[in-house]
């Protein structure tokens, strides 16, 4: 608050320089200087008291926050000071979130790269104790089970989306929409228990096989497919449908030949992301698929190994020569992460390559 009424210079139109300066912003270099001061203080604290890089960063942020708010309050007033404080806090929060991400990526890559060799992809764990061995059986199992889950979820999910967009009216459609949303929140372990309970009724207690895992995963995957396809189908312009009807094309052919092709790229993206979401699921597979050391490519008969479960047991039950098992676990985690990130990249490529022209 300025209390002194500035004296206007006499004359005609006052120049910009002569206007009363109600608000004087902080010079641009000041925050940087304060940042340097804060860093220096933090390094001093570290030299005296010790502490890791995270503690130092935290101290830097806190000191910087205090300095900025004090200096800004003195020069710019309380309102600007609050604004600067919040800007600092929000930026710091964002940077803080990047720390775990970078740490996770770095850990998985640096520890997993050691066993990322050809043996890992060509050998199983049959008769392997200690060194060597691979996860071929787990990779095959993951691909089979996820593939089956996709085969179940995509038709059901796509048809449901078509129902919701093209046919659904009234209470049933509203119930389906709402429950699909709720279904996206089903815990994965509950999906596993459901598959187990279902196949206990059919096969008998103690059941473990691959198709059960596929059913559990499709419970998790279907709502994602529905939601993604629904959004895409809604984006198809009504004019296209109307033009098709006007030419006398029946509704079902309009959907198959006009609506679906237009939305295909978006649906492809959605399906790819849905696969990426379920391919790393561990809990349901732990329950209904079990674990094994050998290659089993028959999903209807006996336990199968999958990458997440392989990772889990290699970490938790490493055996007598644990260092080799832990190495294999990190490599399996790396393979899993590469698969997931590749699927995400593919999804982006699909949506970019096939995006309708002019929509960007």
């Amino acid at each position, binding site marked *: 608050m300025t209390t002194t009424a500035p004296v206007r210079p006499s004359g005609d139109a006052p120049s910009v320089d002569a206007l009363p300066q109600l608000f004087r912003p902080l010079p641009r270099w000041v925050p940087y200087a304060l940042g340097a001061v804060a860093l220096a203080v933090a390094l001093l604290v570290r030299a005296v008291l010790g502490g890791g890089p995270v503690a130092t960063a935290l101290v830097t942020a806190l000191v910087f926050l205090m300095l900025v708010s004090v200096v800004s309050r003195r020069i710019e007033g309380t*309102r*600007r000071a609050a*604004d600067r404080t*919040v*800007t600092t806090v*929000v*930026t710091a*929060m*964002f940077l*803080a*979130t990047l720390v*775990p*991400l970078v*740490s*996770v990526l770095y850990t*998985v890559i640096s520890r997993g790269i050691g066993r990322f060799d050809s043996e890992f992809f060509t050998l199983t764990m049959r008769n392997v104790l200690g060194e060597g061995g691979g996860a071929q059986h787990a990779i095959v199992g993951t691909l089979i089970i996820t593939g089956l889950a996709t085969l179940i979820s995509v*038709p*059901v*999910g*796509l*048809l*449901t989306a*078509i*129902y919701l967009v093209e046919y*659904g009216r009234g209470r*049933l459609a509203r119930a*389906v929409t*709402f*429950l*699909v949303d*709720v*279904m996206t*929140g*089903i*815990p*994965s*372990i*509950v999906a596993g*228990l459901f598959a187990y*309970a279902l196949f206990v009724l059919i096969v008998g207690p103690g059941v473990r096989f691959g198709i059960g895992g596929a059913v559990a995963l499709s*419970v998790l995957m*279907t709502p994602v497919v529905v939601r993604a396809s629904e959004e895409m189908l809604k984006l198809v312009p009504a004019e296209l449908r109307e033009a098709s*009807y006007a030419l006398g094309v*029946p*509704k*079902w*052919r309009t959907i*198959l030949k006009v609506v679906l092709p237009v939305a295909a790229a978006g649906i492809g993206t959605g399906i790819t992301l849905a696969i990426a979401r379920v391919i*790393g699921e*561990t*809990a349901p597979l*732990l*329950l209904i698929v*079990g674990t094994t050391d050998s290659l089993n490519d028959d999903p209807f008969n006996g336990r199968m190994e999958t990458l997440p479960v392989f990772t889990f047991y290699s*970490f938790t039950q490493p055996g007598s020569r644990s260092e080799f098992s832990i190495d294999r676990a990190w490599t399996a985690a790396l393979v*899993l*992460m590469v698969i*997931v*990130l590749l699927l*995400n990249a593919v999804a982006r490529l699909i949506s970019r390559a096939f995006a309708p022209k002019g929509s960007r």
Partner: protein
Amino acid sequence: MSTPTPTTGLVPEVTPPPTRGPSQSAPTRLGDRLFSGLSTGAGVLILIVLAAVALFLITQSIPALTADPRELPGGTGLVDYVAPLLFGTVLAAVIALLIATPLSIGIALFISHYANRRLARSLGYVIDLLAAIPSIIYGAWGYLVLAPYLVPTYRWLGEHASFLPVFAGPASSTGRTILTAGIVLAVMILPIMSAINREVFLQTPTLHEEASLALGATRWEMIRMAVLPYGRSGMVSGAMLGLGRALGETIAVLLVLSSSGGFSLNLISQSNPSTIPANIAGQFPEATGVNVNLLVLTGLVLFVLTFAVNFAARAVLARRADFDGAAG
């Protein structure tokens, strides 16, 4: 494909064209009937599956409900078994929510109102990336990287802050405490919460924002008076969705948490309550007989809990959408 033929033997009805929309003529053609039947069936199947999840869990947990209390682990009955697990589940999820809620609002504000637009888009991708990483990887990271890293901090807290019941200590020597589990869960639910918050913040009417800026508000004042009030219900439902995720997260908790059961508010000690999903995943592979049914019963409890939380979150979001529709 041939043209669909009328399936009824009746005289083909010749209704005047203006009243014949595609939806009215649809049921008369075989292809249309098939297609609409198939897609409606798929929608109904979703409802059936959801009902079947509940039904199968109930049927499989009945033996545990009727079993003699002495046959159950612990030997003192159902409630004594389920209650500590429920407590641990809620405790870990609440810790995660306490950490993740302010952070997610900060991240969302940074992306929606602070970063420039091009940067914001790539930052959005980075957050999505965080969401794509499988939970087993977070679990391994929490177990072998974060937990050992936090041990000195816990020791310090146990020595200097032990007057607080939550930091009563003695500090865990492995770092695999319920607080570590909560932190890992927070990292895992951050992406979905920030994504939802970002969406609602971006939906703030530009006119509201410009009006407050034109009145001389600083950016923070504009956010406080225009963006946050507008996004309040969205933030609430985002937090509830995050809570639902945290309640149901299994493998990360199983890897990170070293549990001993029982009730304890002490967040940094060696003895931690387990959570329902982690307990199921840990016990199920070796469980037999009535123990299987007992685990299914705890799964049912979890299902009801997450269903209620998600239901409430979606209801808040749906009401918000109705409101928007009425306003706009």
